């Protein structure tokens, strides 16, 4: 090899190593988190690291199910915190993966809206397994130019009028959306709670979804899937989050969303602490930080969801005028009667018979449905 080639090789090698220098290290400890993309933005993570001395590493998970698996990987203890949604939190609690926390150590806890202080998806037997963070409804999104009259019922998603132009989330918990629709339109099935279904009720929901399958363009897995589908004309109606709606409107797409007359399912995320965390002090610092009105507002606006801290409303309007009302952060308690928050389906649904279908069954049915 000639001298010149050596020089080239050395230059390439040096170029490769260069960025390795200049990485900052904090001394207060490290928090490894499993988070939804957008939940650990530099906007509020950087000041946290400065103020607390704790370093944050975030791993993004694609689904609630992935979060549960990651929390358990390596026998647990790889991760300190997880931003679990309601369809994961009970599994983590019953699986013994997360620990109960003391809400009195979180100064802002008392400022949470009542609904979110002890919700059933993170509070079991009076013990709090983490703090509620943000919530949002699953809305009905439609293209205002292609869909008329404006839909008012989830029935629009099962209507063959929009064949090949419908999109719904690729998530087993979507079965609850079908169950919610049946709960309101077919009272004879006797569905009381869309997450507590016995075999008959479950089969009815699945057959409704099977009929829907021929109408579906794509089961969206990423929020950006649905944004692309609507922006580029491939879908005109679908189940969505407020995030997609706002992004699409900002990009000039003719869309609108609505919480239909049947009500809606919704998600409520909770920061939970691993049972095996080695850095509980930092974890509490994070829980406190993420509950403060300003951080709550920043995250709400970044992600397009609604904070649980009632003082976040004013901060939101400071960041973006009118955003508080847009995301219903000022909603009265009565508003939540219409929202059925995600929770993990378990066999025991309180009637003493344990005849409900648990989440494993939901997952299997979903895989078979998509096939």
């Amino acid at each position, binding site marked *: 090899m000639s001298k010149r080639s050596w020089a080239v090789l050395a230059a390439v090698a040096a170029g490769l190593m260069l960025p390795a220098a200049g990485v900052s290290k904090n001394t207060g400890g490290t928090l490894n988190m499993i988070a939804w993309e957008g939940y650990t933005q530099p906007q509020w993570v950087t000041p946290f690291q400065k103020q607390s001395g704790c370093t944050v590493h975030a791993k993004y998970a*694609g*689904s609630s*199910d*992935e979060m*549960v*698996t990651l929390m*358990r990987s390596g026998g647990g203890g790889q991760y300190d915190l997880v931003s679990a949604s309601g369809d994961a939190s009970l599994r983590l609690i*019953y*699986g*013994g993966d997360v620990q109960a926390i003391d809400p009195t150590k979180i100064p802002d806890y008392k400022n949470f809206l009542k609904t979110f202080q002890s919700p059933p998806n993170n509070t079991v037997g009076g013990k709090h397994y983490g703090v509620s963070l943000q919530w949002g409804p699953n809305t009905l999104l439609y293209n205002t130019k292609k869909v008329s009259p404006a839909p008012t019922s989830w029935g629009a998603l099962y209507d063959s009028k929009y064949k090949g132009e419908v999109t719904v989330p690729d998530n*087993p918990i979507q079965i609850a959306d079908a169950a919610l629709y049946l709960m309101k339109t077919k009272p004879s099935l006797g569905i009381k709670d869309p997450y507590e279904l016995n075999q008959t009720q479950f089969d009815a929901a699945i057959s409704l979804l099977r009929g829907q*399958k021929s109408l*579906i*363009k*794509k*089961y969206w*897995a*990423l929020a950006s*899937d649905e944004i*692309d*589908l609507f922006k*580029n*004309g*491939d879908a005109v109606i679908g189940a969505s989050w407020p995030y997609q709606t706002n992004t699409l409107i900002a990009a000039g797409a003719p869309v609108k969303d609505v919480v239909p007359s049947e009500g809606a399912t919704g998600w409520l995320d909770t920061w939970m602490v691993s049972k095996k965390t080695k850095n509980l002090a930092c974890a509490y610092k994070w829980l406190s930080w993420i509950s403060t009105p300003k951080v709550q507002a920043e995250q709400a606006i970044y992600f397009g969801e609604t904070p649980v801290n009632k003082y976040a409303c004013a901060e939101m309007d400071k960041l973006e005028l009118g955003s508080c009302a847009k995301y219903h952060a000022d909603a009265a308690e009565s508003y939540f009667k219409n929202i059925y928050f995600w929770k993990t389906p378990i066999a025991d649904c309180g009637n003493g018979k344990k005849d409900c279908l*648990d989440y*494993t069954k939901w*997952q299997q049915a979903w*895989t*078979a449905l*998509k*096939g």
Partner: protein
Amino acid sequence: MAAGLDSPQGLNGRGRGARRRIGGALYRRPWLRGLSLLAPPVAAFTAVYVAALAVLFVSAFWGVDPFAGTLIRHFSFDNFRTLWDASVYHTIALRTIGIAAAVTLTDALVAFPIAYFMARVAKPRSRSILFVMVLLPLWSSYLVRVYAWRLILNKEGVLNWVLHGFGLPAANIAYSNTAVWIVFSYVWLPFMIVPIYAALERIPHSYLEASRDLGARGSRTFRSIVLPLALPGVVAGSIFTFSLTLGDYITPKLVGGSSSDFIGNVVFDSVGVSNNVPFAAAYATVPLLVMGVYLVLAKRSGAFEAL
């Protein structure tokens, strides 16, 4: 690289003597040299990779406690029975293998002419440029390239825009298995071009001259000389395109439609979703067996030499 073997200059006489003796001993006993060189990589590979594979496939016969998510180390065929009984897993396996085969065939047909052009027609300078053009796409993120295809195939995307410009009807192939096939063929194409190129380039010119001297026309030379000698390259490339498609789950997720799940998606969901590694392992035996058969056939055709 190999720094340990490149001893510093200016060793004293005794050091040199010892070095010479060791060197001589090793040269005279090639088996000793072979063993000392082969043992570390083979041992490392066996200890980490082969052992991992073995454990994984033993676990295909285990189960998982549905409530606590812990492994039950009890031998049973339950996972395989589930796979056999539920028709959905047959559909998905056939779809995966079918699309992988279609992608491989497409890539072979597209890659052969360009590899031929590069190896036997292009001048050295344009050959270098072509090589860089073929290889450079591999350096731009696979994910982003797949994602870019959505912009092309969308209902109001680039493809339909071009078709409209020519007054042709719109193609409605976004979010479908057709889209999956196109995008897979796209991303793995360089992995097919290069081995075919390498095989074609190795064909000695004298063979072609001999063929011509013996009176064969171009097409006959191509069929009787070029094609058989290039075949190992095609097979080598097909190992990549076939196996890469077989084990992928991201492209179907990004560009697939309402029934585009691959084996990889089910495996990934079984691990990621239900933490059911045994079931995932059981289903992963399907691509493993398919690739096993494929590799044995490939080995017969001498493709390993061309990999």
